Every structure is written in C-alpha cells, then in structure tokens.
C-alpha cells in the first residue's frame, strides 16, 4: 500500500494543489513548493552530472583501462583548471579551460548554423510561383511567404529616409506580417500552457479516483 509510487503521487498532488493556491493569494506554502522545486531540480542535476558524466565517462574508464583511455587526462586537466576560478589569485589559470569551452562552443554553433540552418533554409525559400509546378494553393502560399519576407525586411530598413510611398507601404505591410508572427507565437505558447494545465488537472482527478 505504502509503496514509493503511492507516496510520490500524494506528495505530487499536495504540491500541485499548493501551487494552484497562488490563484487565491500568494502564501507560504506556495513559496515552499517553489523552493522545493528549485532545490530538487538543482540536486538532481548535480547527481546526474556526477553519475552520468564524471563517473561513467571519466572515472570508471580511467580506473578500468588507463592506457586505452589516456586521452581522458586532457578533459580531466581542463576540468581541474576550472576549479582555480574559486581562488581569486589563481583564477587566471582557469581561463585556459574557459577559452577552450567558448572557442569550441562558438565554432560549433556558427558552423552548425551555416550548414544546418542558413544554407538549407535559403535553398528552401527559393520556390516556384507557378501553379503548374506546385498547384494553386502552393503558388498562393509561396507568394504570401515571398511578400511577407520582403516586406518584413523593408520594415527593418532604417539606413535611409522613407520618402517613397511604396517603401512606406511595404514597411507597413512588413509590420503587419511581424505582428501576425508574434501573435502566432503567443497563441502557440498559450496552447502549451493549456496543455500543461490539462495534464495537471487530469493527474489530480486520476489520483482522487474521479
């Protein structure tokens, strides 16, 4: 009867109701639940970092087969150098590790963005307006995308004066497209939170046996 899952369910139910109590008023129990959430998340992340990374990727391979895993000494050294950041006088030593992290991270992010996003998306944007190729709806959709992209770019054209009526009209159209995009993002965010609310209420009803 009192198995961990059962206890966990009722603790989760209690914490869920406590969080919902914020709708009435900010209170001590609500804040307690928030602190528990933050503390548990931090503690769990620390445990996973040790068990999944330090132990399984570093310590065990080095202990079991040091010669085959001698290359792990490099990340081990860089990781130890990071600890010098705790000492103000020796903190500069950790800059080596920080430089390595930032350098590799920036290189991977930039390279991945060019190869994985910019180039493929540019190619994908070159689409046909011909109904014979993509159909009537496809041609209309591509035309709307083209107009939206160009007009949105004109909205961000700040370097020159907008004396031309055509330019001002395009900028206004671009602003409208941008607002529609923001509205769509807000709407999808709202859908997400409604989905989370449904799942929580469903959980409460299930635990209560509704």
């Amino acid at each position: 009867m009192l198995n961990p899952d059962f206890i966990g369910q009722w603790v989760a139910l209690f914490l869920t109701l406590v969080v919902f109590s914020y709708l009435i008023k900010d209170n001590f129990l609500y804040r307690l639940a928030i602190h528990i959430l933050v503390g548990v998340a931090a503690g769990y992340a620390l445990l996973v970092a040790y068990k999944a990374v330090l132990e399984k990727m570093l310590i065990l391979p080095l202990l079991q087969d040091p010669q085959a895993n001698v290359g792990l000494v490099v990340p081990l050294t860089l990781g130890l150098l990071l600890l010098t950041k705790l000492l103000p006088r020796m903190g500069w030593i950790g800059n080596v590790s920080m430089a390595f992290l930032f350098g590799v991270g920036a290189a991977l992010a930039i390279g991945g963005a060019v190869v994985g996003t910019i180039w493929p998306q540019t190619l994908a944007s070159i689409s046909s307006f011909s109904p014979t190729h993509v159909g009537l709806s496809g041609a209309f959709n591509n035309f709307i995308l083209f107009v939206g992209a160009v007009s949105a770019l004109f909205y961000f054209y700040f370097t020159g004066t907008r004396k031309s009526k055509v330019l001002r009209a395009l900028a206004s159209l671009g602003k409208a497209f941008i607002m529609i995009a923001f509205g769509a993002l807000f709407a999808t965010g709202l859908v997400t939170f409604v989905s989370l609310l449904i799942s929580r209420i469903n959980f409460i009803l299930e635990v209560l046996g509704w």
Partner: protein
Amino acid sequence: MIYCPNCGTANREGSKYCNQCGARLTPEEGIICQICGTINSPENEKCVNCGASLKPAPPPEEKPAEELPKVPVFPEEIILTIEEEAPDFLADLRAKVQEVVLPEEEREVVPPEEEKPIFIAEERYEEEKPSEEEELLPPPAEEKPAVAVEYREEELPDWLKEAEEIVLPPEPSAPADWLKEVEIPWLEEEIVEVPVLAEIPPWLEALRPVEKAPEAPPPEEEAEEMGVLQGLKGLLKPAAIFGPPEKIPLRGEVAELSLGGEEVQKLIKLKPAAPAVKIKAPPKEIRTHRLLHFILLLAVLIPMLLGWPSMPSGSPPTPPGVEKFFQTVEALPPGSFVLVAFDYEPYMAGEMESVAYPVLTHLKGRGCRVALISLNPAGPALAQALGERAGFLYGEEFVNLGYIPGVEAGLRALGTSEGWLVRYDYLQGKPLDSFPAFQSVKGLKGWNLIVLFSGQSSTLLGWIEQVGSMVEAPMVAGVISGLKPYAEPYLGSGQLKGLLGGMADAAFYEAMLGKPSAATRAAPVQAFALLIALLVILVGSLMRGESHA
C-alpha cells in the same frame, strides 16, 4: 584642530578619533609636530602630515657668551666691510641724488672717512645693537615695518615720504626720471627682489580648517497626524533612517540615529498611544490576471468534470507533418534501430508525454529496437518511465543511453566517435557492448530513424544542425505547441521528415494509429479552453479600447 594622521581630516580639539575615518588621533605616547601640530607615533622620525623632523632640537648648552661661535653673516662686520670697501660709484650716486633732490642748504656734507650708506642708520643700529646671543636669531618680522616707517618720518627726504605708505610694494615700480639719468651697470643687470607675500601652495591650502557656518535653527516640523506618534514633533529623522548615516559612529559612541530611536521609545512609553485614525480603505483593485487564471482553470476543469467530450464531427484534416511522421514510422521494417531523444524538462512532461507515447507505441508495434538518449539531465528518467509504459522490454527492445552533456559538442562527439560515446547504460550501469540486441549500432551509426522529442529550441536545433548533416537516417520531431513555429521551416526544407506539434497533433497521430489515448481525450478540452481564452481576449480588448476612448 587636530589633523588626522591617516586621512588629514580636521577634528575638534580633544577628539580621540577621527570623524572621517575613525583613526585614533591621540596615540598613547606621541610626539606633537612643532610645524603642523599633528600627533605622531613615538617611533616616527618625521611628521606623517608635513614631513618635518620630529627629533627634538638639542637643548642649547649654557656657555659663556664669549664662547659662542661667531656667525660671519651678521651685520656689523659686513657693514664695516661695506664701509671700508664701498665702491666709489656709491659715493657718486649719493652726491648726484642730493644734487637732484635736496636743496643746496640741506645737502649733507660728510667727510670722506665718515661716509656710510644712506640706507643705514648707524646711530639707531648702535642703540639697538643686539647682544651676541641675539645676533644668532633673526630679528622678529613684526618690527621691520615699524622701524622703517619711524626712520622715514624722521630722516627721509620729501621725495621718499611719498612712498611712505607703501611698505611692501607688490612689484618694483618704474624708475623715476632722475634714476634714469644715472647709469648703474649692476643695477640694470641684477634683479631686485622685492619681498611679497608668500603664496600658499594648494596642498597646504587644502589643509586649512574650514570653519562651519553657524547652523540655522531647525525649521518647525509638523506634528505626526496619525498612529502611535500622533502629536509628536521632530522625533524622527527620515534622512537618517532611510539614507546613509551622516557620520560613522565611533567606537564607544552612540549614534545619533539610535539616540533618536531611544527618545522616541521613551516618549511612546510616556504618552499613551492615541486611538488609531480610521482611514477609509481604497477600493480593491480588480486583480485582472487572477480573474483570467480562474476563468481558464474553470474552462479546463468543468468539461473534464462533466465527462470528457469528444471531438465534433467534421474535424479538420490531418496536418501534413503528422501524416509524414506517421508514414515514416510506418515504413520502418521490423527490427529497425531507432534512436529517440528526450530533450524536455519535467514540467513539460504533461504535453510531451502525450506526444511521445503514441509514437513509442507505434514503434513498439513495428517491432523496432529503441535506444533512448537525452541532452537534458532529467531526460533519462522521463524516457525510462515512458519506455517501460509503452511496453518495451529493457535490454532486448530498448536501452537507455542516459545523459549526453554539452548539447552541440556532445552531439558532435557522439557522431564522430568510433564506438559508444556513452559507455554504460543509464539503468543498470552495464557496458553497452554487453547488450547483444544493440551490437550493430554505435554512436550515430547504424540507425534507421532518429526521433526527437524537444521542448526547447536549442536542443532541437542542436540535433538538426550538428547531426543532420552527419547521418543518413531520417529525422522526425515531436515538440511542444510553442515550439512548432520554429520547427515548421525544417519540415518545409526536408530536414525533418515529420513533425508533431503538441497535444493536438498527437491526437491526430493517435487517430491515425487507431489507439486513442490521453491526447485524444485532451484535445476537445484544449479546444474549448482556447475558445474561452479567445473570447476573454476579445472582450478584454474591447473593454480596454472603450476605456481608452
């Protein structure tokens, strides 16, 4: 004034500590500087303020007057020397001056052997001739002008009396006409130094003590109108309470603030508290956001309490991303290897599990072998629970690879490593090579499909950008509703072969799969709640527009 040896602040006489920095002003044993008055530590040889030597001058030895050394810089001998060796041009100059200035009967006729410089009053000098001891000290400065004025009144000619009032000319005046006629070679070349008032250097001027202006009487303060302090005047100092203290309390002293507080407390105790004035509370502001939260809560709760509604007939057509996703999974042959990434936070599990569960059941139905992996520390636990719920047999049908740190770097390393980047499984801690069902796949090689369940754009883009170009296996993604707009372009470009966006798309997937589950039940409720939210937004916008108008 006592100047602080530490910061130089001028403190009142008798102060023990500096008002500015709190440094001790009177060392137990100190030496007072004879120049600036600073009290220095006994071990100091020079004053910390002005740098003057602190060594006491050697006491003058009482010697008989005749034994005192004669300083050969003092007047008598010099004057005598000047008299004896006076150049001829001086005698000529005196004669010329007398010829020009004085009438003939007043001219002084001095025998050559008694000639002396006209600026020396010999008789007076002899009268006030100091003793030999006094000769060692310079004459007091105050006496100089008096002697000069007295001399001029008695002895000076008329032409000099005009300049009587000018005791210390600020700068040398232009030579008179008569002086221009006289040629004095050495006078033209040499600079005549005129005594002027010495200028005080800036650093010394900065140390000048500033006399505080007498403080104005404090303005009449208004009495407290309410509360326990009603009727009291001038008891609280708001500036001292809410601002920085005017001065740092010294050790052993009581700060003004605490004194004020004590006074207030005493008065409070002495005077009974006045009855509290009832103030009419302002009308409660309508907490709009709380109202909206309640409306949304009821919009979700009521349909669920009344029984789960079903989707109305004539539902919209299945989104193309869902259909592609389903067809991609459906095309997998039995025994295919599928790598499934669970990259979402626990708080997103409510929606993501409704998306992932039908996909896992579909993969289970297709007889696929699934490896679960995560870029999120909490992901492996979520994946493990969902894998077991979908009915996979651990070790034979699915294995949990655990957490991969570093997002982009971790994915890159996973793709470039020859073997498993993760050497041990998440659940049992066994080497991954010991699972015979997964011997033919390592790293990112050998997979037939990669399924991404992402709740964050960073992890989704990490997989697409870093791994998409390294693997030949198709990639499909299931994301939360809010992430669907970000993922749609990758579906259009073909980098994703299928896309499930949130609970609504999951409901379509379950409908195609023929196994309705949580997403199918939740979709109508979600639609109803969104309809209510849309109405609230419209009404709120209209009300706001009316209030603005």
